[in-house]
């Protein structure tokens, strides 16, 4: 599904990713862990196409298509979704207006028919119920004045409605209280499917208790330092990243 080879990325002229390679097959969930500043968010942004994240070398393909040459909105229509570590506030644009525009623009790009307002409302209400998002929150401008945890829940709400193929969750667990963590994890698990895959970036084993990863990768200094099974996360929680820092 997602294949990254030798990806080298500079942010505002500073090289952050140094030949990173990674493969996530369809149906699988992979976790990425790593120290602060290792380049985890840089990887997410580079895959999503953020301006000023310059790809100096390497490739990234989703189902065989080169995503790095696509505009960000085309990547989204193609099935890529990034749950932001720090979701942005969109003043004056009501959440549902924003999402209906996003969904219909994606569908237009894919040559599909628009979703009507009533059909969209039904979808939205159902997803909101599952994620315990109130009607009042849906009427407010997207993320404006939301708490950190509310913003994260809203990311997963968006993800459910847009139904992407490949999902990157950048520290979606940070800022969530214990109940919200369960609600969000249920939401994420709800989306697991044989033709979908995801990359879960986290600092905590806690999330991986709910969302069981098929593989865990350790990202240090802009490349994958080690890959292993779900046990690797437990080991990292115990021993930290010292051994990689020295090696790097």
């Amino acid at each position: 599904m997602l294949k990254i080879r030798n990806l080298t990325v500079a942010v505002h002229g500073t090289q952050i990713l140094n030949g990173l390679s990674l493969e996530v097959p369809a149906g699988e969930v992979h976790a990425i862990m790593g120290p602060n500043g290792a380049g985890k968010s840089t990887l997410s942004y580079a895959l999503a196409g953020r301006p000023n994240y310059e790809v100096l070398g390497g490739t990234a393909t989703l189902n065989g298509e080169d995503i790095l040459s696509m505009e960000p909105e085309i990547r989204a229509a193609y099935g890529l979704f990034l749950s932001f570590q720090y979701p942005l506030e969109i003043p004056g644009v009501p959440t549902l207006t924003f999402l209906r525009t996003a969904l219909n623009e994606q569908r237009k790009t894919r040559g599909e028919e628009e979703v009507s307002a009533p059909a969209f409302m039904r979808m939205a209400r159902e997803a909101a119920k599952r994620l315990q998002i109130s009607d009042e929150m849906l009427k407010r401008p997207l993320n404006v004045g939301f708490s950190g945890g509310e913003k994260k829940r809203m990311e997963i709400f968006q993800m459910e409605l847009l139904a992407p193929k490949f999902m990157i969750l950048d520290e979606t667990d940070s800022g969530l209280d214990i109940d919200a963590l369960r609600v969000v994890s249920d939401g994420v698990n709800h989306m697991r499917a044989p033709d979908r895959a995801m990359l879960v970036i986290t600092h905590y084993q806690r999330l991986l208790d709910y969302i069981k990863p098929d593989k865990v990768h350790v990202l240090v200094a802009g490349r994958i330092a080690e890959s292993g099974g779900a046990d690797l996360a437990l080991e990292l929680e115990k021993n930290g990243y010292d051994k990689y820092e020295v090696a790097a």
Partner: protein
Amino acid sequence: MALTNALPDIFAPTKVGARARDYFSQNGLPNKRNEDFHFTDLSRGLSQETENAIIFEENPAPIAEIEMRLFEDRIEVIGQKIGVCVEETAPNLDRDVFQKLIGGMTRFSKKIVIDANCNVAVSIIRFPNSRANIEIAVGENATLNLVEKQICGGGLSSFSCSISQAENSQVQVQTQLLGNGVDLSLIKASLESGANYSEILMASGGKMVRRNLEIKLQGEGAKAEFGGVYLLANSHFDFSSNIEHLHPNCTSHEVMRGVVANGAHAVFQGKILVARDAQKTMGNMEHRALMLEDGARVNAKPTLEIYADDVECSHANTIGALDESALFYMQSRGITKASAKALLTQAFLAQVFDAISDEAAKNEILGKVEIVLRGLIK
């Protein structure tokens, strides 16, 4: 220095026009040396050849009980109502050079008198090249819903509207400045106690467009509200407001937001004046502009002139660009960059009308804003 030979042929064949011609041949047309026209050189704008106006809508159906159609060669009055009478008048505009200029250009003048307790909707349709003056006297407890629409088409036009509001009268104004030529216009209102004035405005700018808003709050508890938006691309719009608090316990609230694309020039000059005995005044004024592209220019000059000591007055002024991170966030959800810009811009402008209760007028303006934005954002 006499500038007679440089003076363009803009004055009307009226007594006021002749006086204005004399005055301006002595003093010259207002140019950048005049503080009020520092950012808009009227003498240049008025001296340029104006292209022939194109008239798109010859005879739209009337939209109000009384409709005044201002043409180059006449004023047509359509409709009538008990309690409202329309009379002839002559412009009485002499306060400053701008008023003198507009007065001198005025070819036709009408006065509308609205009786006490009467409730009337009036529309004023300004066709290209019209140069007219309308006076409106609003009686006690009367309500006036006024729409001023400019039909686009270039040319040189001028317009002045003077409203005098008796006690407890209500005036709601919706203004659409959509001409694309040279246009000078002025709206002024004086409010007695308990009177309310509320205006929403949309402007697309033109070759040279200047608009003055002059409010005098001169009775207990009078209140003025203004919310305006401008959307400019390759056009010019100069908005100048002067809100005078002349009596205690009056309120004014003014918000203007605008977007400028390539080749546009926006000017906002706002002044709140509080006279010495106008205690307990509440006055605020806000101007925010969004630069969509580099090749645009915005000048803003807010001024507070306060002679009373127990007042609450404020002003805010910002000039910024769209938030790039927000744009990327929206794109990452599948929204094209152009739509993302349009959504953010529309939201930015719509906030001006948050406090406006006239839903119909608000929706009409926002509908037009959306259409103009589509052309503005690439």
